[in-house]
């Protein structure tokens, strides 16, 4: 009896029952996890959507009630919302671009070192395994603190005076971008390094015989071959950047003022500092819409070529 377990059910009594048996088994294995996902993610999201239509003020509960689309209408004239949207774009675009460019350059560099890649890999693992909140606190104290931080030690000994790296609005934004880039570039680096190591050497051999220049080899051979990995890194890093929280919270708390307050931070502060949970829920809905739209767009782009 030659039956393929993997092909869809063929004709005949035996395979049909086997296919049905396989289906039943699949449902038994999958249903508990899907049910749990439904309970822990989807139902809470429905409740989030419902709450985004409410006015919920935990500080003044007597004001709470149905607000319809009021929360969403309020965003139009809320400068802090538009500023947070702009900061989200700046933060996401700059951190993702920096991670990919630095990570890829480093990987190309390190690939040429015959020995000692292991040590570098260990150094690269360190930032990745650290909790973002700890990274934020390290940077806030040891690296960026005025006078005593590492960066100030360098700038002071270079004669560039001390700066309030997290207290000045402009510098604070640059600082949180630097922190994020520091922590997650190793991820891009490791993925690129692993991908580059799997590229077929014979293609490069042929290119060398054709006297292709190094940059031509990079643009016409390497880049197309590692494109899927780059796209994947961009997608994953974009998701992380859009919901970045702990490191910014620890380093600046969104401040000074609201100069590092990306949409994620704004939704948090509105809900849990200002206790305006209804408006916070609608901000979270917008963030979710953006996240899903961006990921959908990127997956489309990934398939496009």
């Amino acid at each position, binding site marked *: 009896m030659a039956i*393929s377990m*993997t092909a*869809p059910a063929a004709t005949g009594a035996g395979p049909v029952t086997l*296919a049905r048996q*396989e*289906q039943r*088994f699949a449902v038994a*294995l*999958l249903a508990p996890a*899907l049910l*749990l*996902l439904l309970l*822990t*993610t*989807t139902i809470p*999201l429905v*409740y*989030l959507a419902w*709450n985004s239509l409410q006015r*919920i003020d935990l500080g003044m509960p007597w004001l709470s009630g149905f607000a319809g689309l009021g929360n969403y209408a309020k965003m139009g004239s809320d400068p802090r919302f538009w500023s947070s949207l702009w900061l989200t774009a700046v933060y996401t675009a700059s951190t993702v671009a920096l991670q990919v460019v630095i990570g890829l350059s*480093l990987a190309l*560099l390190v690939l040429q*070192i015959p020995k*000692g890649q292991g040590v*570098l*890999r260990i*150094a*690269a693992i*360190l930032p*990745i*395994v*650290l*909790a973002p909140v*700890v990274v934020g*606190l390290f*940077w806030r*104290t*040891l*690296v960026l603190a005025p006078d*005593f931080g*590492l960066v100030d*030690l360098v700038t002071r000994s270079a004669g560039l005076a001390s700066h309030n790296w997290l207290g000045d609005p402009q510098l604070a934004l640059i600082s949180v971008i630097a922190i994020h880039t520091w922590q997650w570039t*190793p*991820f891009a680096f490791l*993925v690129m390094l*692993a991908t580059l190591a799997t590229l077929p050497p014979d293609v490069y051999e042929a290119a060398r015989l054709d006297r292709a220049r190094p940059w031509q080899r990079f643009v016409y051979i390497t880049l197309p071959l590692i494109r899927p*990995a780059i796209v994947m890194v961009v997608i*994953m890093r974009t998701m992380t950047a*859009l919901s970045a*929280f702990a490191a910014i919270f*620890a380093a600046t708390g969104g401040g000074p003022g609201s100069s590092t307050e990306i949409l*994620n931070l704004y*939704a*948090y502060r509105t*809900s849990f500092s200002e206790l305006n*949970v209804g408006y916070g829920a609608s901000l*979270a809905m917008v*963030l*979710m819409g953006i*996240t899903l739209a961006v990921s959908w767009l990127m997956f489309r782009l990934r398939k496009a070529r």
Partner: protein
Amino acid sequence: MKRHPVRHALLWLMAGLLLAVWAFPVLWALLTSFKSERDVLAYPPVWRFAPTLDNYREVLFGGSSILPNLWSSLVVSFSTTLLTMLFAVPAAYALARLNYPGKRASGFYVLATQMLPPMGLIIPYYLVLQKIGGLDSYSGLTAIYLSFSLPFAIWLMVSYFEDIPFEMEEAALLDRAGRMRTLWYIILPQVRGGIAVTTIFVFLNAWNEFLFAVVLGGNKVRPVTVAMFNFISVEQTQWARLAAGAMLAMAPVILIGLFAQRHIVKGLTVGAVKGGGRR
């Protein structure tokens, strides 16, 4: 490739520089954790100082001991990891290897849940748990941790299940071994490595989590990531104690990172190339 000594030296210099940039803040924190509060604030910084264990003593057994917080983190991370693996491994097997109606849709659903921003989940959890008195409880925190660990673990495990050849399970099935027995005795042993990597990642992510912990935690359940703020107040920052506390809090993940280095890189790349992975 041509090998020039100068070029090599330059390469090493660059590589060393990047090593320093990534490792130095961590090593600096380690150094700081052994300094007295006076040495910490010395300018220029002192490289030679009398090392002291006072900070660790204070952080472990002093007034603001983080021992209860380490316990909180351990309980939440452990229960999250156990539950996640229990549910994710069978589901991933079904997604990777079995045929059933709605396969694409269920795979897409798992992927979509992985894309959800945590901020969208924390608000409903807070409102519900507040109503039913579930704030500051292990079960509440574990439930919300499942929301990010489950999709992640399922997708990572799918990529490991997809890597094993079909022949063995077909042979076992033709021997009338039964599907459950085949999964348990034939398939699972082949993805042992994948299970180990996934377990490590789920544990790491749960241990490092902060947003859910700070909102849903309280005096009883207060993971160590939240406790780091014990050492920071508006008036002053206790640098050396913060460094010591952070070193203790991060010791488990740093050790896992060092020992499971190869596996972590493989997990990251499997996830990255095939489409799983969140962090």
